[in-house]
């Protein structure tokens, strides 16, 4: 839906109906559309999550350091950066 919506045609929906009810398809479609719209907008606002992957409340500056400047898997650095920082604070 986000990258090639032309591929989501009647045949695609017919296949989807083999796995999901109409209720679930509407739920999924609206959810995906909503997220396509909001993720891009929120990206322009420059906000970062309030919590680290391991659940610590951090300020925006530290959150930016942990999560980086583009969305990636938490396992690709964010977990490590959050844990390292937490260990440093505990040592102090």
């Amino acid at each position, binding site marked *: 839906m986000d990258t090639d919506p032309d591929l989501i*045609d009647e045949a695609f929906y017919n296949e989807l109906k083999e796995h999901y009810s*109409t209720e679930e*398809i509407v739920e999924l479609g609206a959810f*995906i559309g*909503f997220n396509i*719209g909001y993720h891009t907008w929120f990206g*322009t606002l*420059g906000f970062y999550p309030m919590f680290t992957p391991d659940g610590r409340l951090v300020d925006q500056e530290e959150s930016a350091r942990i999560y980086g400047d583009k969305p990636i898997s938490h396992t690709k650095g964010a977990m490590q950066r959050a844990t390292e920082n937490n260990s440093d604070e505990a040592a102090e």
Partner: protein
Amino acid sequence: MAIIDPIPVDQLDPEKFQTRLELAQELMVPDTLFIQIMAHAPGYGEALFDAMYQSHALGNVDHTLKEIIRVRLARLAKDDYFGALRSKKAQELGLTEARIEAGCGDFAADNQFSDAEKWALNYAKLMYTEPKKVNAEFYDLGKTFFSEPEIMELGAFIAFHYGLQIFMRTLKVLPLDAA
């Protein structure tokens, strides 16, 4: 045959939908078809219509400006449904098709739009084509024209409507009047 069959209006719970159906017929963006489709998912018909109505018909930002933005976004999303709908309220406020066309075109060079309107139209234009240009500097300029609550109103409106236009595009439906 429709990809998703709309629920007949007489099968919608009047307690949940009567007022919303009336509002939809009054504004026409969205029309009742949107509710009839979204109502398949429990709670979605109500929540999504309310958010759509709140973000478009209410708020502090000029409704006619938001209507131009909405049509511009629908064309970007290639959504025939939302692209064909027109707000009755905006028409009553004097919005013409010529002004909508101007807003969907080269608005930056068009003197009928104020600098504030040009910023808002550019906000919508850049959001899904060049979002990296919507940066702190861009927002600083926006704050010379709009309050922060108004910028949040515009941003949420743009994000919400564009997202649902992308979904509606895939369903290949048309407004009830044009179907």
